[in-house]
């Protein structure tokens, strides 16, 4: 059920990322809309939905990338899986763990991306790109996480009646 609404949301986010967000330079970097949505959805709905959104969101990003197809798919699938795990609950109240996981998930996602690019022979240079690209992206995703949470909680309540667990 979540995919019916998830596919258009993720496609729009990926298209916005390519057309608009990649031109932005805030705090020296740019946010990752799709990654942020995947992390937020995983925290709201759990690992299975997180993995599904990560997989679909990753494919959307890969379709708008000249790199090897699957780089984003694998990264976001793993991030969705990790963000939906039960240990994330130990990070505190929902807002706190959302903010922490948005930043941590972004760093993990970018780290995986760089690792796989390195393995596939790309000139990734993580020592340069992690502080200049991944860190600003993590910070911006942390700042934007309340907005994505508000949006996706609204979506969550539309597709499934609230159980009170999120309140």
């Amino acid at each position, binding site marked *: 059920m979540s995919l019916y609404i998830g596919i258009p949301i993720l496609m729009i986010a990926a298209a916005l990322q390519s057309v608009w967000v990649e031109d932005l330079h805030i705090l020296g970097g740019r946010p990752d809309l799709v990654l942020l949505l995947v992390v937020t959805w995983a925290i709201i709905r759990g690992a299975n939905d997180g993995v599904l959104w990560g997989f679909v969101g990753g494919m959307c990003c890969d379709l708008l990338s*000249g790199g090897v197809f699957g780089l984003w798919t694998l990264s976001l699938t793993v991030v969705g899986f990790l963000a939906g795990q039960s240990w994330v609950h130990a990070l505190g109240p929902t807002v706190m763990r959302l903010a922490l996981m948005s930043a941590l998930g972004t760093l993990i996602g970018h780290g995986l991306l760089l690792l796989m690019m390195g393995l596939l022979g790309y000139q990734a240079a993580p020592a340069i790109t992690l502080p200049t690209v991944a860190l600003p992206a993590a910070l911006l995703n942390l700042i934007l996480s309340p907005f994505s949470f508000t949006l996706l909680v609204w979506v969550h309540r539309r597709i499934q009646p609230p159980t009170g667990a999120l309140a």
Partner: protein
Amino acid sequence: MKRDTGPLLPWVLLVISILFLGLSGSGLLAPLESIFGFAITPLENTFAGWFDTLGTLTQTSRDVRALQQEVNDLQAANDLLVQENIRLREYAAENEQLRTQLNFAQSNPTYQLIGADVLERGCETLLCGDIVGQDTNPYLRYIIINVGTRHGVATGMPVVTGGAVLVGRVARVSVNLAYVQLINDPDSRIAAMLQQSRISGLVVGSVEGNMIMTEILPDETVNLGETIVTSAVGGLLPRGLILGQIDEVTYQESQLFQEANIRPAIDFRRLETVLVITDFPQPNLDELKNEE
């Protein structure tokens, strides 16, 4: 809240993701990419159109627009003149080389000589494409243009702007979109030469988005401001496409070659329309293989 209902799904999707990576280069994913591409391409084009319109709407006064248009026209005219000038200088340099060869032939009348170009310029077939987006992977410097295999675009084709400035090469292509690896991408490698002094080297991109000319022999004198053009060595690109100008030269005794920082001929962030060179005279590499 729903949690961990099916332990198998994550692993299945992880395995599929890894399979994507493995199969990406084989072409087996092309049908899948085409199907999803048909859905996402109109979305990308629509958003590109909206943001383009939005950018135009921000110009509040008509006078500002008129002035902007005039500046653009003058800039375009200036670009054309600069490019024409560079082309003429290219012909002058070529003429100089041919004269030298002619002198050599005249001073050695007993030699049997046959003239040959490394790669002839001209007879290029061009295809126009609008830039609809940038790569979603922040570690790659690619742009996405709205022409694909259905328009005749193929991997490896050179992409230029303004007729003579090289933007990059088509790295991946889908039915309606082409992904162009910019010349400042860290994995970009282009055989190049200096237009006036004919010194050859290799232009490479960097993770910071700069361009560097490497493999310049230590005894060569590189002049600041000299124009760098493609040399066509390897036959993958036409000769004489502009890459930029020499900004700074560095050489350390311990290094084998000199290096030069390049000032790009274009601002990659302001690209709007590009031309794909779909056909240009290339050496017959099959013949070389057969001779081996």
